[in-house]
């Protein structure tokens, strides 16, 4: 058997055996302000959400309603210059693009796109809209996107970002284009509107 297969089997086995004790998802209740990933960023959800514990990075948090494949709300709470948006599988063999001190606001959609493409090894990703907005009381950027994931399903997404004190703050949402995106996008926008930095 080739190493890839062995590794994949081991990953499933290890995760399956360890998880009941080590992992626990948390309920995020409507109207209760919560901090994100031990950062100064707080949001107040307009409805109940589930925080997933499958951690994809030190400064990120994943929330969902029906599971990560159906609605994926991701917070990037203060990515430092020189760091990738999510944890790399292998820093050496599969590096991800990095946020930098000189990254411009207009380059944030490109950074997000390149991260999705390289982390998922996909080719079909389109940024469909980019607009200047106010986010966290700063000049920010809103962008909409659409991509086909490895499971051959087309997903739509939206994200808002701002660079505050040299760090990147961003909240993104993506869900299958069919039904799920339209159903939940307003809940996502309410969370974005409630985001505060002290």
């Amino acid at each position: 058997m080739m190493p890839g297969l062995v590794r994949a089997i081991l990953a499933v086995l290890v995760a399956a055996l360890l998880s009941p004790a080590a992992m626990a998802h948390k309920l995020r209740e409507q109207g209760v302000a919560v901090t994100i990933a031990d950062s100064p960023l707080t949001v107040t959800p307009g409805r109940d959400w589930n925080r997933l514990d499958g951690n994809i990075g030190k400064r990120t948090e994943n929330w969902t309603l029906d599971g990560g494949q159906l609605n994926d709300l991701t917070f990037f709470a203060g990515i430092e210059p020189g760091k990738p948006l999510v944890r790399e599988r292998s820093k050496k063999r599969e590096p991800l693009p990095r946020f930098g001190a000189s990254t411009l606001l207009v380059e944030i959609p490109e950074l997000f796109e390149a991260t999705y493409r390289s982390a998922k090894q996909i080719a079909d990703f389109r940024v469909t809209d980019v607009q200047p907005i106010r986010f966290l009381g700063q000049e920010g950027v809103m962008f909409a996107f659409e991509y086909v994931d490895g499971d051959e399903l087309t997903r739509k997404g939206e994200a808002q970002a701002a660079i505050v004190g040299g760090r990147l703050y961003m909240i993104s949402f993506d869900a299958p284009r069919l039904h799920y995106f339209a159903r939940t996008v307003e809940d996502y926008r309410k969370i974005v509107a409630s985001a505060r930095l002290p």
Partner: protein
Amino acid sequence: MIARARLAIGLVALVAGRMGQAEPALPPPYAGAYQPQGVDEQGLWALMDEEERRFAQSDMVMREAALQAYVTKVLCDTVGADRCGATRVYIVRVPVFNASMSPNGLMQVYSGLLLRVHSEAELGAVLGHEFGHFEARHSLEQLKTQRSSGDVMAWAFVLANMAPSYDVVRAYRNLQLTIIGNFYRFGRNQEREADGLGIGYLNSSALRPQAAAQVWERLMSEFTADARAKGLKKPRFDRIPFYATHPPEAERAATLTLLARPDAATRDDGAARYRAALAPWLPQLLEDQIKLNDFGASEFIIQSLAESGWTAPLWHARGELYRMRGAPRDLVHAAQFYAQAIALDDTHAEAHRGLGLSLLKSGQTAPGQQALRRYLALKPDAPDAKLIGMMIPKEVPAP
């Protein structure tokens, strides 16, 4: 059965030919439309027919009729019109070098393959190799392997369901992909056989069979360049999906050269036709590669495409590649590359955008804004027009 025996004789002749003097391979006589025999093969075909029904609707399939027709034509030119009637070609938008053929005649061609071959003969060499697996019905021999991996899958699924976290689901999905990949991993001897058949088709076509060895050599160079850029000691050839179980590189290159008809070396390899046919899709294929954040491989691909002459899309792609890596020295290079693209095609809007951003980031405000203005003039309805527009009047850091 008679068809099978004839094929076997053809293959024996092929192998015998290889063992003796360096004799160019020729394909066995075509056996005509084949129907599956026995429960195993019929079941396999039924499974693949079902899979094809689903796959034809997949969002990953590129539905550009002209591109699909062109790739099909290259396949038909390679294997001959009679054989190619047994296949359906689907182009899939996946940025890796790969192609595969299912036992029922479904051929998948990955967009990453189209970016990496340079001529009709090279594309034909890869497609002919896959067609060789199909004609020799290697997947039936692999059925047993598939059965045992089916057991592995069943257990992994049970275990994955015990821990319903996203990461586990993802790992399970990777496992599923790997096993499907495993299904198409043939044994080394089967690969040799398919190589022989593939080059046999090229020998009896009008294309240049020597191109087969070139594809192989260039791919090895790409992986070497990529490993060097990442600071790895040596490249991992077993990670190349297409070549994972293929014979060692030296042997393969030698065999392919040996089997090619020497007198066919002067034939046209269709490089100019290939470039012309792919030109409309090249910018998209390049973008799909560059945004993978794989600097060494992308730089190698651009350089090797530029051997036949630099074009505006190639310079632009190189600029994007360097701007994305974004070190101060990269920005200086990026600005030069964008300028080269603009020199060749002043209406290339994206090149003006890249030039403007690179100049702004390296502190050259006025020329940077000038380039962005040109971008907006050329493409007023660009998705990011509003944001770029805001950068022009007041602009970023005061020097």
